[in-house]
């Protein structure tokens, strides 16, 4: 044997003969370690073996009882494992051609005749055995090749699978890295049914304050931290996404620290998972706070512009600024605050509430009552007083309880303090115009925190309000000036006409007497009387004109003194002498208390004017009563007092009577231009002295002035006195 594939596998050869002796002979002839000789003593036996396994060769006796060799061969060829095994017929009897043909037809490959040569038999069997072994070897080799091929394919497949897994892993790692590295959005997945989080990107901690691992299994993270109206929108978006339509929604979120964040979330429903069969909701939630704030800011700024335009219309509509300010306060509330209070500084420097508005109209009284607590004033250095003093605005974004207690005249207590609970944020802006603070506008909010941009807006509003107030004040002043001028012209003409009446009638009377040839009636006595009367009227007219001229000089700041040495007592005597007749006519006696030699360097003409004005007033308002005039030396120079027992001047008017065109007495009863005391005040001031009045209603009036004896650069200081009876000159 040249080869042995496997020593365990021998080459099977089937020997068929009905005679055991014959089988024994065959066995002995063909016995070889390479062969496995299988014996069959009948056709049936042979067929069973042949069907059960493949034989390298079948040696078949032709003549057998029941089933002969020919039939057996046909059966073997009909099916079974040995269908293609070569069959060698062994025969003795039928050595004729018919049998040989029959054998070949039945599938035999050879025929041997008994008695046969053992050598030939061995050789023939060997050929078939070798053929079988070779075919088996070929089969085995091809099997091996196939196996090898199969192995190599499997290895390749495994490698490909491994690489793809690796790639998948890399992709997944990249995805996880990506998810982990993002910081301005949150990537999440949630159960479609329960809305429980399945995964949340770690960025959630930085953005919302909630850790990702806290959130897995969390049910209403987005909805639970959103304002109600946003929660509704978010749930609507979820429903839409569940129905398969990817949806985006803007929603607010209250972070762990309480800040409001604007998010935009895009929600999609994922494909069904092959393994779990679940469909999850996936979300990409982006922080859009900055964008939203910009939008909001833009909206606010547009709103602010619209508001300022509206406010401007109101401010320009009327010159009654108290009414206008009330309108502004009502425009501000509730859009820009819970309260708004407007304060103005009066002419007396007192601060008054001129307008107030509260979101809840019933609480408007509260604002004024809280004013008394000097809210935020910190001993008048801050708050409304502070803004008025410094002209600077104040912004307190977050007003705390402690801050209120520290800056107001407020004590911890249930009543007053509860009312202040609503003060969460506060702004006070001054209304400034031409370096003057007219007042303030205060804004208080219980829900929003005022920012720098609110301050800027309110400052603009205050600036416009200040301009409107200033315009109104200027207009009122201009109107008052026009009115004063008209009134002055009317009074001036009255004052000028009054002395003209006796003058004109005296002259017309003389003219009539001449015309009627009644010269005899024009006696020297009459003429003297007429001339005296006329002279008095001319003096009055002259005095009026002097006063008008002086006023003009004072307004143009051209009041110049022509100083010369003079005796003040002598001047008083002279003036009283000029007024002898008017004093008698007014039934006024004069008490003179004149110190001698009160001599100084003064403008005699102007001091005479002062004395005339004082004496005229004393006669006018104190007719029927004595007048006292005193002249004395004083520590600082000369002192003059003119005292009447007339109607008197109310303390409130003590300052005013020295102002231009001002009079304390009713114009229905008393004439006068309102110039006399104004001129007196200015002349005395020019001399470096002071003038004041002591008086009250019904108690007469005493005008006192003091002037230095000579021209000194220093002005005399007015002595401090009771303010109810004595007031400073201009």
């Amino acid at each position, binding site marked *: 044997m040249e080869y042995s594939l496997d020593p365990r596998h021998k080459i099977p050869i089937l020997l068929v003969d009905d005679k055991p002796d014959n089988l024994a002979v065959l066995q002995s002839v063909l016995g070889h370690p390479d062969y496995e000789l299988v014996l069959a003593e009948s056709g049936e036996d042979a067929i069973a073996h042949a069907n059960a396994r493949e034989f390298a060769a079948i040696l078949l006796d032709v003549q057998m009882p029941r089933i002969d060799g020919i039939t057996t061969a046909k059966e073997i060829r009909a099916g079974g494992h040995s269908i293609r095994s070569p069959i060698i017929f062994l025969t003795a009897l039928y050595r004729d051609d018919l049998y040989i043909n029959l054998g070949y037809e039945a599938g035999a490959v050879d025929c041997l005749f008994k008695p046969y040569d053992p050598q030939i038999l061995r050789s023939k069997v060997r050929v078939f055995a070798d053929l079988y072994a070779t075919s088996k070897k070929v089969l085995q080799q091809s099997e091996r090749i196939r196996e090898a091929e199969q192995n190599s394919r499997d290895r390749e497949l495994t490698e490909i699978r491994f690489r793809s897994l690796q790639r998948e892993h890399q992709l997944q790692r990249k995805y996880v890295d990506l998810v982990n590295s993002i910081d301005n959005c949150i990537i999440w997945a949630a159960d479609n049914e329960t809305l429980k989080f399945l995964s949340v990107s770690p960025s959630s901690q930085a953005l919302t304050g909630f850790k990702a691992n806290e959130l897995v299994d969390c049910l209403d993270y987005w909805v639970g931290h959103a304002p109600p109206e946003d929660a509704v929108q978010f749930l609507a978006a979820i429903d839409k996404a569940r129905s398969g339509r990817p949806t985006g929604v803007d929603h607010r979120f209250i972070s762990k620290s309480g800040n409001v964040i604007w998010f935009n979330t895009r929600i999609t429903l994922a494909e069904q998972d092959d393994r779990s069969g679940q469909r999850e909701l996936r979300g990409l939630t982006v922080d859009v706070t900055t964008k939203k704030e910009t939008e909001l800011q833009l909206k606010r700024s547009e709103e602010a512009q619209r508001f300022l335009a509206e406010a401007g219309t109101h401010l320009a509509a009327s010159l009654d600024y108290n009414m206008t300010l009330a309108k502004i306060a009502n425009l501000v509330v509730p859009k820009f605050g819970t309260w708004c209070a407007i304060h103005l500084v009066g002419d007396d420097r007192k601060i008054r509430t001129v307008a107030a508005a509260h979101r809840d109209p019933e609480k408007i009284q509260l604002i004024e009552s809280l004013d008394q607590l000097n809210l935020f004033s910190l001993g008048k250095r801050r708050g409304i007083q502070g803004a008025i003093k410094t002209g600077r605005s104040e912004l307190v974004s977050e007003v705390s309880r402690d801050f209120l207690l520290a800056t107001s005249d407020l004590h911890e207590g249930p009543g007053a303090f509860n009312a202040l609970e609503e003060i969460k944020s506060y702004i006070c802006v001054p209304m400034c115009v031409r370096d003057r603070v007219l007042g303030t506008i205060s804004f208080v909010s219980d829900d929003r925190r005022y920012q720098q941009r609110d301050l800027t807006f309110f400052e603009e509003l205050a600036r416009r309000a200040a301009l409107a107030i200033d315009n109104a004040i200027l207009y009122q002043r201009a109107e008052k000036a026009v009115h004063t001028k008209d009134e002055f012209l009317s009074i001036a003409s009255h004052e000028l006409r009054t002395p003209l009446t006796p003058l004109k009638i005296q002259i017309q*009377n003389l003219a009539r007497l001449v015309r009627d040839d009644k010269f005899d009636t024009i006696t020297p006595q009459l003429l003297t009387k007429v001339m005296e009367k006329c002279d008095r009227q001319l003096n009055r007219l002259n005095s009026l004109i002097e006063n008008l001229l002086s006023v003009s000089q004072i307004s143009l700041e051209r009041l110049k003194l022509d100083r010369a040495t003079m005796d003040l007592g002598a001047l008083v005597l002279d003036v009283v002498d000029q007024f002898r007749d008017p004093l008698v006519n007014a039934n006024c006696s004069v008490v003179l208390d004149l110190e001698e030699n009160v001599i100084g360097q003064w403008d005699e003409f102007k001091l005479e004017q002062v004395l005339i004005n004082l004496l005229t007033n004393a006669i006018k308002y104190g007719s029927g009563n004595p007048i006292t005039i005193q002249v004395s030396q004083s520590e600082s120079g000369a002192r003059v007092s003119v005292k009447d027992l007339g109607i008197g001047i109310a303390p409130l008017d003590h300052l005013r009577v020295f102002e231009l065109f001002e009079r304390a007495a009713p114009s*229905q009863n008393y004439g006068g231009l309102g110039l006399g005391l104004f001129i007196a005040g200015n002349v005395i001031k020019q001399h470096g002295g002071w003038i004041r009045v002591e008086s009250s209603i019904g108690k007469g009036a005493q005008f006192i002035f003091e002037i230095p004896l000579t021209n000194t650069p220093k002005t005399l200081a007015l002595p401090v006195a009771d303010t109810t009876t004595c007031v400073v000159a201009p």
Partner: protein
Amino acid sequence: MEKLKNILIIDDEYDIRETLKDILEVSGYRVITAAHGEAGLKALEDEEKPGLIFLDLMMPRMNGFEFMERKDATPEYREIPVVVISADSAAETKAKSMNVNGCLKKPIHLDSLLEVAQKYCAV
């Protein structure tokens, strides 16, 4: 109606009172003067009833308007004619709003004064 001889002058200006008085007396009238409304009312009470009152408007203590109210409130004085004498620029307008018989704006023309006196009083 018989004209009366008396004329009452109410004016706070001494020189005006005296000048008018002189002129009217020379013309034959009897003249009483008062320095303000209050004195005017007293003169009505104390003196013989006048046929005419010359009344200034702006006066201390009681002005012309107040005097008219008081005069008209007393039935026996109501019929006494009053002519306003005033230096007020709006004297005529003011006089029209009052229950008076006329107005002479200061400075008064002598002829007008005598005409008015002649109209209401007998010499």
